[in-house]
């Protein structure tokens, strides 16, 4: 898993059937010290609860498809956790 920050949302009506009801988030990838690193991308929210400003954990490619109960879902990045605390990364979420 990698760290990312939720910075936005993507809205789409015309899409693969199995993406219906799946929230799409714009993610700023983060380095291990939680500083921005690399270009933003889109991830599907497998927690259903992630929102703008939160630090999340993300899995990719074949692991990303495993995050959803549907048999088939065409996603290559999925949010699987909302980070509360990572002292190693000097994070204190909730204060930001």
């Amino acid at each position, binding site marked *: 898993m990698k760290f990312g920050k939720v910075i*936005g949302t993507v809205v789409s009506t015309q*899409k693969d*059937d199995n*993406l219906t009801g799946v929230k799409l988030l*714009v993610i700023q990838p983060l380095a291990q010290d939680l500083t921005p690193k690399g270009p933003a991308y889109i991830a599907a929210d497998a927690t259903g609860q992630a929102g703008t400003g939160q630090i999340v954990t993300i899995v990719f490619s074949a692991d*990303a498809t495993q995050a959803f109960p549907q048999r088939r879902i*065409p996603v*290559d990045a999925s949010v699987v956790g909302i980070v509360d605390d990572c002292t190693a990364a000097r994070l204190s979420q909730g204060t930001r």
Partner: protein
Amino acid sequence: MQMARVAGTVVSTQKDPKLVGLKLQLVRPLDILTGEDAGRPLVAVDTVGAGIGDVVMIVGGSSARQTDRTASSPVDLAIVSIIDLVEVEGTTVYDRRGFAGEGSQ
């Protein structure tokens, strides 16, 4: 997943039989925040009926085969949605209806 703009159609007659019936599009990856080109053009299988100029979401790798149309085909990039709206930190960076920022041209 990445944001991309459909730049053209790719036609091929002599191809893997499992690609027959699949629409191939040329897509240009875009930087989500600026809407500018980001990276080389790529060929993607269109599973949602996108048209030239549409801003779409593309999915890569083995995940591209996780659609009903591409499940058993030799593909590694698929268009899986047409993007209506992208909002970043409270600002609309792309709006399909045309009130866009830098995301549309």
